[in-house]
Structures are given as C-alpha cells and as structure tokens.
C-alpha cells in the first residue's frame, strides 16, 4: 500500500510539474468558450453575407408563388428540355420543374441541380409549396384569413418538476439538455485523454526498459494501480481548478456587468440558450432553471462517474499499453475499448438527451461501460434513486473486474518485448499462472 502511494506521488508530480499541464489547465476553460463564440460569430456572418442562389423555374401549374427568403427564383419560359440546356450553361443553383398538378395531389415537382442539395435546401423549397397550397386550399374551402389568424394561439407550457419532498421546481428542458450534453462530452474527453495518458506512460516505461527495475521492487499490480491512481489525481486536480476558474470568472464578469450579465454571456456562448431567450417568457425561466439545477448533486455525480469511468477504462488502457511496444501497435486493441464509449457518446446526441427516461437510455446509464457518459446526459433531468444506486454499484463492480482482467495481462505484457501480440496471445497471457 505504501509503495502504491509512492508511485502515485511520483506520477502526480511528473505530470503536474510539466509546463503542458499548466497551459492546458488554464487555457482549456478559456479556449472552449472562445471557439464556440467564434463558430457562432462565423455562422451569423455567413448568413448575413450569403448571396442568394438563383433557381430557375418552369411553372406549368401556376400554383408556384416564389418566396425569396433563401433563393432568388427566376422564371424560365420554354420547355423542360430547353430549360435543362439553359441551366447547364448557367451558373445557377438549380432548375425547378413544376408540372400541372391537382391541389389534392401535388406530384412530379422536380429540382435539377449540379451538386447534391442539402436537406435544408430541399425542405425549404418544400415548405414554400406547402404553405402556398395550404393558403389556396383555405380559399377553396372558404376559410377567411382573419378567421385563421384568430385560430392561432401561442402556448408556452411551463414544466414544473415535483420532487419527492413535494417541492415544486420549475425547469426548462432545453437548459437541462445543454447541461447533459456538456457533462457527457466532458466525461468522454476526460476518460479518453487520461486513459490515453496511462497507456502512453506504460508504453514509455516498457520501451525505456525501466519497468524491470521497478517490478523488482514492487508488484506489477502495485505499479499499475499507482499509475492509474496517480493520473486520476492529476485529472481531479485539473477538474477542480477548472471549476474554480470558471466560477470565479463568472463571478468576476457578473460583478463587472451587473446582474444581467450572466444571461448575456450565456446568450453569446450557447445558441440553445439564445433560442430560449428569444421567447418572451423563456428568459426568466432559463435563469430560473440554471438556479434550480442542484449543482452540487450534478457535480458530485460527475466526479463519481469520472472516477469510476476513468478507473474502469484506465485499467483497460493499461492492459493495452503493457501489451504493445509502440503507440502505433496499440491502435488495433483500442477498437474494442472505443466502441462502448462511442455508443454512449452518439447515444447521447441521438436519443439520451431527447428521451432521458426511455428504456435504452436508462439501460445505457446502468451498464458500466456506457454508464459514465449516458448518466451524465440524464443526470440533470432527475434520475430515480434506485437507478443511480444500481448504476454506481455496477460501475464499481465493473472497475474491479476490468482491473483484475487488466492486471493479469499487464504482469506478463510489461516484460515481453518484440512479441507479435494478437488477441489469442493476450488470452494466453491472461490464462498464464503467476
């Protein structure tokens, strides 16, 4: 135990004393908002300055009512064949052919283009037709426009979550969405960056041959655990520094611009939030939700899942590092480790955040290999205690299992040089006695 502690110290100091650690720790929290701001800025500028593309159209139906919000529609008089020829020689974006059709059955509308149009381009054009046809149908049915306007109502459903104590908390699921996304991405990055560092460190020890000297003083298991725990402490330190940096920055900005500043700051950084703000009642609720999120709960579960997930994957990264002679060789064994990470990462965007209480989301947040990222996506929305407890228990168990598994490969792998390692060789090492 004492020796693991010595190794933890050594690993910790090795990393923390490096300049790169200082740079990454201080710059990263500043770089991310900066990148986001630049992206949003560029996107807005692009929209502003974009010259509209020209779309030729041949309208045989007389039902087309050009809407110039996105495209410049210019009529072409002539047959479709002539139109195609003219289009081919032009610089125009597309040729829209509208044959005669019944209002009840709009068929045969075709867009000819030189490059594949984006889905938004197509849906924009479809919408032009849909809205105009709808208007025409209204007229056909004798529905008055003023009557129609009267029918329109704007409803904003306020969501209030009643917690078990009976306390009511208003929440905005869009904010929770953002929190879940940020947590999940951060978890993914943390596990990968620190896991890769474990692997790197082990490969270095193996390549420099120092490992044989070390294992003549400590058990291979102690060396492996010391390394994993040492890097974990570096990761935690980095995370804590970030929290302190971000919260003090926020406070500083708050002090500078008065109370409204945090919301403005958010608006610049987060397009999601921007949308929320645009809605009249939204802005108050947005702030409300941010305040309502139990930050200690979210941050402390993040810490638990970070430590658990990191240890779970860290052991696997250690096993891979011990088996190979160079980082390039490690690639082949990275694949099976990456798969569950990617599943939960893409799951986060496709369904976990959309439907945090769906069956698949729940199971992904319980299964140890995927739970760190999946649970981060769900945590803001509120997770039943039993699910959280089961997930945490399984994560702890999973980490013990992967560590045991990794240690068996590690103890053999670190002393092997120049062996061509395949999965069957790994299996042999795993089965090998002491």
């Amino acid at each position, binding site marked *: 135990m004492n020796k693991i502690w010595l190794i933890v110290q050594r690993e910790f100091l090795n990393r923390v004393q490096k300049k790169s650690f200082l740079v990454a720790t201080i710059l990263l929290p500043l770089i991310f908002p900066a990148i986001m701001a630049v992206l949003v800025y560029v996107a807005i500028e692009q929209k502003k300055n974009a010259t509209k593309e020209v779309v030729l159209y041949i309208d045989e139906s007389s039902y087309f009512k050009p809407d110039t919000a996105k495209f410049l529609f210019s009529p072409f008089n002539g047959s479709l064949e002539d139109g195609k020829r003219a289009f081919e020689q032009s610089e125009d974006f597309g040729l829209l052919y509208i044959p005669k059709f019944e209002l009840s059955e709009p068929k045969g509308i075709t867009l000819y283009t030189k490059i594949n149009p984006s889905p938004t381009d197509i849906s924009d054009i479809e919408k032009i037709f849909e809205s105009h046809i709808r208007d025409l149908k209204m007229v056909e049915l004798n529905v008055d426009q003023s009557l129609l306007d009267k029918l329109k109502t704007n409803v904003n459903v306020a969501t209030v979550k009643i917690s078990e104590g009976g306390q009511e908390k208003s929440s905005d699921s869009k904010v929770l969405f953002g929190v879940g996304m940020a947590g999940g991405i951060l978890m993914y990055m943390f596990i990968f960056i620190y896991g890769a560092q474990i692997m790197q460190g082990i490969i*270095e020890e193996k390549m*420099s041959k*120092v490992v*044989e*000297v070390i294992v*003549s003083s400590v058990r291979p298991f102690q060396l492996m655990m010391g390394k994993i725990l040492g890097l974990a402490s570096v990761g935690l330190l980095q995370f804590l520094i970030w929290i302190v940096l971000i919260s003090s920055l926020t406070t500083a900005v708050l002090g500078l611009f008065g109370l409204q500043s945090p919301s403005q700051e958010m608006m610049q950084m987060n397009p999601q939030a921007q949308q929320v703000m645009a809605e009249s009642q939204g802005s108050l609720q947005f702030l409300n939700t941010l305040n309502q999120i139990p930050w200690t709960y979210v941050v402390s579960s993040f810490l638990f899942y970070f430590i658990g997930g990191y240890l779970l994957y860290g052991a696997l990264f250690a096993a891979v590092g011990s088996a190979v002679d160079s980082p390039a060789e490690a690639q082949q064994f990275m694949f099976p480790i990456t798969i569950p990470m990617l599943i939960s990462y893409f799951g986060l965007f496709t369904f976990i955040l959309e439907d945090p209480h769906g069956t698949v989301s729940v199971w992904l947040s319980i299964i140890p290999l995927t739970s760190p990222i999946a649970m981060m996506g769900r945590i803001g929305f509120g997770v039943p205690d039993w699910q959280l407890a089961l997930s945490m228990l399984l994560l702890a168990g999973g980490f013990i299992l992967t560590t045991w598994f990794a240690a068996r490969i590690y103890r053999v792998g670190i002393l092997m040089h120049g062996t061509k390692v395949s999965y069957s060789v790994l299996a042999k090492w795993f089965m090998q006695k002491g």
Partner: protein
Amino acid sequence: MNALEVNGITKRYANHLALDQVSISVPERSIYGLLGPNGAGKTTLIRIINQIINSDSGEIILFGERLKPDHIGVIGYLPEERGLYKKLKVGEQLIYLARLKGLSHHDAVVKIKLWLEKFEIKDWWHKKVEDLSKGMAQKVQFISTVMHEPRLIILDEPFSGFDPVNAQLITEEILQLRQRGSTIIFSTHRMETVEDLCDHIALINKSKRILEGTKKAVKAQYKTNTYSVLHRGAFQSLESQYELLKQEKAEDDYFQSLIQMKSAASPNQLIQDLTRITEVHSFVEKVPTMSEIFITLVKGETHE
C-alpha cells in the same frame, strides 16, 4: 551459510519449459557466475529470485528464510536491459528507486550523495537522464542497484556498455561490496569475467542446471590430464600410458608437444620419462578455460 538456495525450481510457460527442476546454492560472500547460452532460462531464474514472476514449483531460501515480499529490499538487481526514466533528474530518480526499495527519504538522500561522490559525479544530481551518455547512465543504474546496500546483488551482464576504464571501476566496486559482506551473482556470457572474478559457477542449458561448483573444482573435473611440453629434440613415440596428441616444430630444434596421460600417472612421472628421451624446457599442465568447458558442455548437449 548459503546466501541463496534454489531448490528444484520449475517454471512452465504456455508452450515451453523455461526451468526444469533447477537447484543452485550460492555461498555467502561468494561471487557466483550464472552461465548459460541465450534462452537457457537464466533470466527467468533471476526474475523468480527477484519475485518478478512466480515459479510453478520448488522453493527459494534467502539467508535462511523462505523467499517473501520483504526480501526485495535485501536484493539489488541490475537487469540486462538497462533503463531509467528519461525525463527524471538523476537525484529524483535515485531517490524514487531507493524509496521503492524501502529506504526512507532521508536515508536515500544520504546514501545517494555518498555514491555520487564516490563516482565523482556529484554535479549530475540535477541532470536529466536523457542528457547523459550511455556510459554515464550505466553508472547511475549501477548506483541504483547497490545504493540500498543489498546483501545479495544480482548483475545481469554488468559490463556491457562500459568502456574499459569504467568496467575497471565497476569491478573494483563489486570486489569492495563483497569485502563488505555482499554476495554477488553474475549472469554473463563473458568468460573472461568469470575467469577473473567468479569463485563459484553454475551452468544452465536448455532449462536444466548441468553443472555447479567452485571454479577450481569444475576446472579439475574437466581437466584432461594434458600437458604442454617445450623440448629440444623431437621424439616419435611414448610409453603406452601416454598419448602424444600433437608435436609442432617451434624454432631451431625446439618442439612443442601436447601429451595426454591415460592412466593416473603423476606429472613427475611424465617428466622423468620425458627427460630420458628429450631435453625438457618447459612443462605446463593444460587447464581448460571456462570458455572451453562452456563450449564443450553446451555443444555436447546440443549434439545429443
């Protein structure tokens, strides 16, 4: 007392037997040569003694006690594949390694300073290992092996990578360490090392120990009762108890003959018999070198 007793150690890997019932006894304060061709199992045996890997069966007694985890502080091990943390400074590195061996921080610093002074490399304390030459790094590595004053020092090919001056320095240190009570095990191919330094040897070939004993006894065992004689005047035949293996003309009418005694006759007898037929100028018993014994045994095994 024996410093180390290895009794019937067997180690099997998935597809081959690395050690087959190997036993050796290393007397205290001896310099013990562990010999054998590549792949014989020497490194496996050393790793088992260092508790880096476990044996399948057999037992190891170190200074009268069964091998236990605490013993790592008693052993100093210099692996054949040398290695240090490249990015660490010499001082930090040695302190770390010493503390892993169980020394307190204070003791580690005191002892390391002593060794650096001894090797006149005190100013290396703040140098990173990657900035040292290979020979320099080897010195640091040697210090890391012996700084905790181990009672048993295991050196795997200790002289590879040293220039003759440094090799001499290390040799002297090894002899001094023995003087102060340490037992030293060499694992080596370099027969001149064995010839010069070792007093006991064991030969491992194909996972088995095929020879063990004091250097003197081993040599006596393998001597062929052959004598090299420089004499004036040729002779063609000898009495039947001798065999003339070779006779070469030296210079003038001097000849060099190689004579093997078949029966247990004494060298004096041979001299007497020779003086009757020729004029003897020099008479030397041809003792086999360790290298010759090594080659004979290993080749003999291979030819079986």
